[in-house]
């Protein structure tokens, strides 16, 4: 007998097996998650929209198809999934965490969302995020911050804090995220969950509300490496609607994750520790758990090599020129004409004045900051010095990666320099906030894939620490193998998942919170 409590704690892979065997129905699994959302999301605020009845209807439809013996059901049929609000959904508002898109229901599904539906997954709702994915704490959401399930006074990371908190609080088995400079991997680190930024072009960006088009990539968020791999297999592959989509045929990421659980998976694997992304500037407990993880990898047969990547030091500077430049252009479409908010200035005005009043009212402070910065970086007289130089740094960082991957199979860094900080702590200091993506930004600049997974709790604060592996472009599968191998070693030592050590959340009942 599987209880509702079991259903929300099962990894997606196990839930899929029970659905397929008929032991549980999709309606039961979906209802269990909706109940969990009702019970804890008042505190966590991972969701901006909950699908509710639509999710249950779709679940009932999948149950009916299964009862009829439909042979076309996907391996994850009937499993619920959460969707970051940056992704367009036909049947749910898609706000990207911004007031300017409040209530907007797109006329089409993002390709990744269409693929979820075609694979018979059940969308549970839309998850909270920093406005237009600009931030590392979810505090820049126009709809209020998401809170970290490990400590409700702390940030869940960002921009995809909603998706990470949803899986960490057992409000969804897995979720979709997007990662422009770490928005999947950094929230994974601070919530004790798993997240993957695929190779640029490996997953379609069609219908993902663009932040910085040359950096954005959609990817999976989950509690286990295998679950991310399963979701990656659903959403990945070529999309003719995205001109930057790679036409490659991809291997099964799930098979790669399963291969990581076999004996000797790490034997002979060459793992490079990036000198520039270790030690100084990192919280002591982060460095401690990271060093321990390296010892475990070595003990499992991997070879640890130090790698010098001198230009990584310039990654944040280049990123905060390239991203605002691209964002200032991408966000020009929010002009009060075709969708979203319109604010008329007192006494009316020209279309240009309406536009300016709308953008003043509809954008939050971080979005304004980055649009103005990007406009500056692209303006005549500064373009060559700033945007032009940043693009050259991008070349240098790619060369550092190329040189590194000539010597090692994967690179490894902590996923974030610190554990989860307190809400409000860095909100008024943009530069301090930008440093949270220190280790994750290089992968976006070079287009290479990265995975983040938990490696323990920092002794000083008892909060999760994450590790990041990066692989050459197109070698995403390798990350799942290494990630699953390390996950297995750690869980054997812990006697279960790290998230099973998370404190119980207070559960709201009809009469209040108990």
């Amino acid at each position: 007998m599987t209880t509702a409590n079991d259903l929300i704690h099962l990894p997606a892979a196990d839930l899929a097996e029970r659905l397929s065997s008929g032991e549980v129905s999709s309606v039961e699994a979906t209802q269990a998650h909706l109940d969990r959302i009702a019970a804890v999301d008042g505190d966590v605020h991972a969701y901006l929209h909950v699908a509710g009845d639509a999710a249950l209807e779709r679940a009932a439809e999948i149950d009916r198809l299964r009862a009829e013996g439909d042979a076309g059901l996907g391996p994850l049929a009937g499993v619920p999934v959460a969707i970051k609000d940056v992704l367009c959904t036909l049947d749910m508002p898609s706000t990207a965490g911004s007031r300017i898109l409040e209530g907007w229901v797109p006329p089409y599904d993002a390709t990744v969302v269409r693929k979820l539906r075609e694979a018979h997954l059940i969308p549970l709702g839309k998850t909270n995020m920093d406005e237009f994915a600009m931030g590392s704490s979810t505090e820049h959401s126009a709809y209020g911050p998401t809170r970290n399930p490990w400590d409700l006074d702390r940030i869940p990371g960002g921009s995809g804090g909603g998706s990470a908190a949803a899986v960490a609080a057992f409000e969804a088995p897995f979720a979709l995220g997007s990662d422009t400079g770490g928005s999947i991997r950094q929230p994974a680190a601070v919530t004790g969950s798993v997240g993957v930024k695929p190779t640029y072009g490996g997953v379609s960006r069609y219908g993902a509300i663009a932040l910085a088009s040359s950096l954005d990539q959609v990817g999976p968020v989950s509690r286990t490496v295998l679950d991310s791999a399963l979701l990656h297999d659903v959403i990945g592959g070529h999309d003719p609607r995205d001109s930057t989509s790679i036409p490659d045929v991809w291997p099964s990421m799930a098979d790669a994750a399963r291969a990581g659980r076999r004996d000797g998976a790490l034997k002979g694997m060459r793992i490079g520790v990036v000198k520039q992304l270790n030690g100084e500037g990192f919280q002591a407990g982060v460095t401690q758990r990271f060093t321990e993880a390296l010892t475990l990898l070595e003990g499992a047969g991997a070879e640890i090599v130090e790698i010098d990547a001198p230009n990584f030091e310039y990654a944040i500077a280049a990123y905060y020129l390239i991203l605002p430049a691209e964002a200032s252009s991408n966000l020009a479409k929010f002009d009060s004409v075709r969708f979203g908010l319109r604010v008329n200035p007192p006494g009316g005005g020209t279309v240009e004045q309406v536009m300016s009043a709308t953008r003043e009212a509809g954008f939050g402070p971080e979005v304004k900051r980055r649009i103005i910065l990007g406009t500056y970086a692209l303006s005549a007289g500064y373009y060559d010095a700033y945007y032009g130089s940043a693009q050259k740094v991008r070349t240098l960082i790619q060369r550092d990666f190329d040189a590194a991957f000539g010597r090692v199979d994967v690179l490894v860094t902590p996923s974030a320099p610190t554990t989860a900080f307190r809400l409000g702590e860095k909100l008024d200091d943009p530069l301090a906030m930008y440093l949270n993506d220190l280790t994750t930004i290089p992968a976006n600049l070079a287009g290479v894939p990265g995975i983040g997974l938990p490696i323990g709790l920092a002794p000083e604060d008892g909060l999760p620490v994450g590790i990041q592996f990066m692989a050459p472009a197109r070698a995403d599968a390798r990350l799942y193998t290494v990630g699953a191998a390390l996950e297995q070693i750690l869980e054997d030592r812990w006697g279960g998942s790290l998230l099973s050590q998370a404190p119980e959340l207070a559960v709201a009942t009809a009469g209040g919170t108990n």
Partner: protein
Amino acid sequence: MSEISAEQVAHLAHLARIELSPEEIESLTAELGSIVDNVAKVTEVATPDVPATSHPIPLVNVFRPDVVGETLTQEQALRGAPEHAEGRFKVSAILGEEQ
């Protein structure tokens, strides 16, 4: 120190079509100054011999067959608009009175 002035921020805000308040201009002037000071370090290594990269995974000649594909209907395209009339997006005057 960078030389970003309040006038410059006001001009950038005009270019970006954001009607900033005087308080916002003041705080953004200080913030942008310190951000630009920090990101300017890219010029240290961006020597003339280094080519620029605009996209991480270079692809060339991405075409699709020149056939009519799926498009939104007029109703779908207009559905999210703040205002529309006679099958078109409706906006206020393009030109001000003085023009």
